[in-house]
């Protein structure tokens, strides 16, 4: 078994997979990689299961030493990583030798990077997932300086080693695509228009649970509703008139009107935006969105 030593832990370096499913009826958040697109890409490049546990690295990256041979891949935010002080490329298999030192440096672009390792990190599952969840405190706690992770050492390294580029992922994408949420129709046209015209700033208290936004609040008649399910990407409109976007660690049930639903692609985009960034919601006509009541029974 290989060991990975944390020389520096970084700001928030957590174990993630694609999430914890089947337990939302017990109030357990889904969690999982904030930017699922890049998390899957890292595992895909290594030929891993797409759900293999990997590290999510946020804003300030770690410094790591590998005690055994393996292969890794880095995707997502650009921390200008170096291996033994030499620059390495993202979206590419990287051969690791015993004693190699991997350092994440200054963040150049994006907010979250992923470090996948051949065959995934060896870690325990809680409720079917290795993902750390900040709200439910499930999974192994965020990494600390001096901590150790385990992996199977691997000496297999194939030569097909082209860097893959993601053609359609834009870091710093300010326009966040949204579909209509369940309470969308209960708001006036003016309220919706105002929400779509406003530029919002992502507040510093935003985290894996939710993104809090600052901007000009909308004024609307309060809407009484019974608590109902919410999901990652749900845009809630509390009485303050400032929308909140739930992210991967968000609760399962909420009582505020769900005005929009950010698309899966939109959640990944948000995951790569730092606090202080500005965003604007933009509606997309999502073909599957329709009132299914009008469907004829067979």
């Amino acid at each position: 078994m290989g060991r990975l030593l944390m020389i520096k832990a970084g700001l928030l370096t957590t174990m993630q997979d694609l999430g914890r499913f089947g337990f939302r009826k017990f109030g357990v958040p889904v969690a999982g990689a904030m930017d699922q697109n890049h998390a899957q890409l890292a595992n895909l490049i290594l030929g891993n299961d797409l759900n293999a546990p990997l590290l999510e690295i946020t804003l300030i990256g770690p410094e790591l030493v590998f005690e055994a041979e393996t292969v890794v891949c880095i995707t997502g935010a650009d921390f200008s990583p170096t291996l033994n002080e030499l620059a390495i490329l993202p979206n590419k298999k990287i051969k690791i030798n015993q004693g190699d030192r991997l350092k994440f440096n200054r963040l150049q672009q994006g907010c979250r990077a992923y470090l996948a390792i051949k065959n995934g990190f060896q870690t325990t599952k809680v409720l079917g997932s290795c993902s750390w969840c900040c709200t439910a405190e499930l999974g192994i706690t965020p990494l600390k300086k001096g901590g150790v992770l385990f992996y199977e050492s691997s000496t297999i390294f194939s030569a097909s080693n082209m860097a893959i580029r993601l053609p359609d992922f834009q870091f710093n994408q300010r326009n966040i695509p949204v579909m209509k949420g369940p309470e969308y129709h209960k708001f006036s046209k003016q309220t919706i228009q105002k929400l779509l015209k406003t530029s919002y700033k992502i507040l510093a208290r935003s985290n894996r649970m939710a993104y809090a936004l600052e901007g000009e609040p909308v004024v609307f008649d309060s809407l009484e509703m019974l608590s109902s399910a919410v999901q990652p990407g749900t845009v809630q409109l509390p009485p303050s008139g400032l929308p909140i976007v739930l992210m991967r660690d968000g609760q399962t049930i909420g009582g505020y009107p769900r005005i929009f639903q950010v698309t899966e692609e939109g959640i990944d985009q948000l995951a790569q935006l730092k606090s202080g960034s500005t965003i604007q919601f933009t509606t997309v006509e999502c073909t599957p969105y329709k009132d299914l009541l009008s469907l004829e029974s067979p």
Partner: protein
Amino acid sequence: MTIRQTGQNSLLAEWPPIISQSNLLAIKQAVVLLENTFPDGLIDLVPAYASLTVFFEEDLLDAAQIAATLKALEHHKPTSDSKNNHWTIPVLFADESQWDLTELAAAKGLTIVEFVKIFTTQVYLVHMIGFLPGFPYLGGLPAPLHHPRKSVPRTKVPKGAVGIGGQQTGIYPSESPGGWNIIGQTPINLFHPNKELPSPFLIGDQVEFTQIDQAQFQKISLLSDQDPFYLKPDNHG
């Protein structure tokens, strides 16, 4: 019932927007029907007071298929024959002054003894679980005990706290910020991430509360910490 797609792989079925036993029965029936009809392809079913959200695998199921199955339910009157557990939850009602029992009883014109008697005589129903992992939202709070949430939520409500929020009651399975009026505390652990079913409660389950004293609280607390299966259903008949 209205059914709408709410995400790329989710749909939402809604019943009349009230907290009622008939909604609970209908939603429970919908859950059972979907689980039986689609053994594969359902990711999560999230029941709430008057809604059921279905998360499904896009590759295996489509929304119209699920909607058609749910629609067929509309012609059936919900029955109450599905299997539900009955749980008795021990609660220490002693009011440490930082909680709300004394104040709440006074606001309701009741003595603490009267308040506790009304609270523990009722059988409650689990309508949904959420807010925190394993937090049961219980319906059936007698009207004399209804009380609005606190205007300023507490930053720290202890694990096991039993609270009243409006016409509902519930139990905090872990320490958390919270706005409900705290009337007591159970020593039972209600969320076990290492068990196959992390929470004992399912929607439709019946819950009763029974009063315990400080000595019993300590004893049950130890037992519950040692044995994740300490709490067992006490189903009548």
